[in-house]
């Protein structure tokens, strides 16, 4: 069974055709439990996200700030396994028909088996994978498996990426390019700086792929700001925060849906 890379491509193209940015939401699987995590991911899509990334919680999330670390901890203490992550992808995609990617550190994929992970993710209806600690130089084995199974390989670029690397990375990537808005780990920020706009400009110069901006975006105003210059806006920690702050699951789901709705309005405010 082939993965849903074409669904991802057409979803991003549809947003572009509407002259707006796409909204990409992130939540880790298994948070707060596997079943409730499925509901939370589904709520992001129902609330207005076009695409979601399901995080594979990791024992050593070196690129994540305290908010996602906390969610990963809760998920891992609850016993979340890779099969649960795949089930989250399957159930969220089945419930909404939307493109669902997995975002994961490389070691879990390596341990699970590269070919096996790609096959199982495609079979679950997944659209692709974001592998933030797998540099393009080490990615050939994964890319072959992803291509064979109809999965996108989304690479991250950073403000520190030189132009020659941007060309090399984007030539290897599919789906979209994840542009890190700043030098740092995940987490909400007061503002998204000029670095992001400059990085998107430099990335667009070397690729036709949509460029989505992540790291630090937390509210509708920031989403609207980023939507001025990017093809997509990626929001993660802000969703996790809503769930962490809620008194119970139903309140959390309501808050997630509401945030997705506000952000969806934000990405439609292009001047």
């Amino acid at each position, binding site marked *: 069974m082939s993965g849903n890379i074409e669904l991802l491509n057409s979803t991003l193209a549809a947003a572009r055709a509407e002259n707006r940015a796409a909204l990409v939401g992130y939540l880790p699987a298994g948070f707060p439990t596997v079943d409730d995590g499925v509901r939370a991911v589904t709520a992001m899509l129902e609330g207005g996200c076009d695409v979601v990334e399901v995080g594979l919680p*990791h*024992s*050593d*999330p*070196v*690129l994540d*700030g305290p908010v996602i*670390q906390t969610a990963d901890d809760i998920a*891992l203490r609850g016993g979340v*396994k*890779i099969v649960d992550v795949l089930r989250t992808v399957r159930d969220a995609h089945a419930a909404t028909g939307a493109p669902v990617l997995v975002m994961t550190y*490389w*070691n*879990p*994929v*390596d*341990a*699970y088996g590269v070919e096996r992970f790609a096959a199982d993710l495609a079979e679950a209806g997944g659209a692709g994978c974001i592998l*933030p*600690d*797998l*540099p393009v*130089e*080490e990615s050939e084995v994964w890319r072959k498996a992803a291509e064979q199974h109809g999965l996108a390989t989304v*690479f*991250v*670029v*950073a*403000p*520190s*990426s*030189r132009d020659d*690397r941007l060309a090399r*990375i984007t030539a290897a990537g599919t789906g979209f390019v994840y542009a*890190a808005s700043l*030098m*740092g*780990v995940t987490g909400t920020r007061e503002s998204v700086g000029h670095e992001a706009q400059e990085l998107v400009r430099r990335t667009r110069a070397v690729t036709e792929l949509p460029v989505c901006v992540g790291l630090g975006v937390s509210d509708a105003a920031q989403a609207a700001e980023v939507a001025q210059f990017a093809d997509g806006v990626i929001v993660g920690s802000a969703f996790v925060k809503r769930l962490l702050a809620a008194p119970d699951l139903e309140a959390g789901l309501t808050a997630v849906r509401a945030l997705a709705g506000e952000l969806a309005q934000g990405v439609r405010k292009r001047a």
Partner: protein
Amino acid sequence: MSSEFFIPDPEGHIPSAEGYFGAFGGKFIPEALVAAVDEVAVEYEKAKADPAFAAELNDLLVNYTGRPSALTEVPRFAAHAGGARVFLKREDLNHTGSHKINNVLGQALLTKRMGKTRVIAETGAGQHGVATATACALFGLECTIYMGEVDTERQALNVARMRMLGAEVIAVKSGSRTLKDAINEAFRDWVANVDRTHYLFGTVAGPHPFPQLVRDFHRVIGVEARRQILERAGRLPDAAVACVGGGSNAIGLFHAFLPDTGVRLIGCEAGGHGLASGEHAATLAAGTPGILHGSRSYVLQDEDGQITEPYSISAGLDYPGIGPEHSYLKDAGRAEYRAVTDDEAMQALRLLSRTEGIIPAIESAHALAGALDLGRELGEDGLILVNLSGRGDKDMDTAARYFGLYDATEGAAK
């Protein structure tokens, strides 16, 4: 351009362009760090070609660190090792009290060459943190040290030393609150502050080029020891023994002996409460290949690739990974790795203290315990070289509690 004490690039043991020693190594890092890690590699190559770099490092190693370090024969200790002769390479006598200073001075000079003004580092036992804080004081660099909260408690003396030297020490409260988590937090800092910050990595793990350059800065240990033992014993040892956490002191000792195929290279891992208990840090004995902290090597992990929490009484060995060159040497059969339990290490610590008047670090005591076993295997004709990688002052609180020294109940308790 090498010097007497800086001897990089051993023939036949330079990693591939991608940073691999056989199947192990590489560079598994976020894109945000690629430019910085590449800059370290480029600057290191330039430094190696610059006679002024070798000369400055050489001067520091002699006149600041106190190299060459002594080689001490320990016959009263060796009487418990089946009568084999035992020599200790005294890295504990270096300035700051361990081998760590060798690497730190080299990387501190690189930091200056790169024009960076701030240094961060991880530390387990605090020896690397103290050495880094020392070099930063010497060179006027801003210094932040990440240390697991568990380790700040069991190595409180070293926390005080780092702060006395002007470093900021941050107690890391995530995960197992030990060395692994300190490295995670240091990477998070580096991603955010990479423009002006060098991550002065403390062991032969991490992304390429760290396993290579940290090794090169420590090769002096084995080069000196090989020359010294030939002079003193008239022959090469039957075995060279060192403790391994990340593996820096061991690789430093082993490397000069790699071509000497008659010399067994033996790394002693932290066996904690025993391999069967599951509470240990014996990565090579019980781990499987995976990726942790930027390179492929053996790691302690579950079937989903989640890193499992290690345990050791020794903060410096309490790490679920290992430098990639050790994984290569293990699979190639050139080095052997054994697990030494907490109890065996602590007994060896006390034995060396009482027979030779040398109090070793708990880390180094793992190598001493390994040497006791090995001596019994080799018998009276055996000749063993042990790297005494650090001194034990920092461990007196742990040792006093372990042996009941505070209330003079020793012997009854153990």
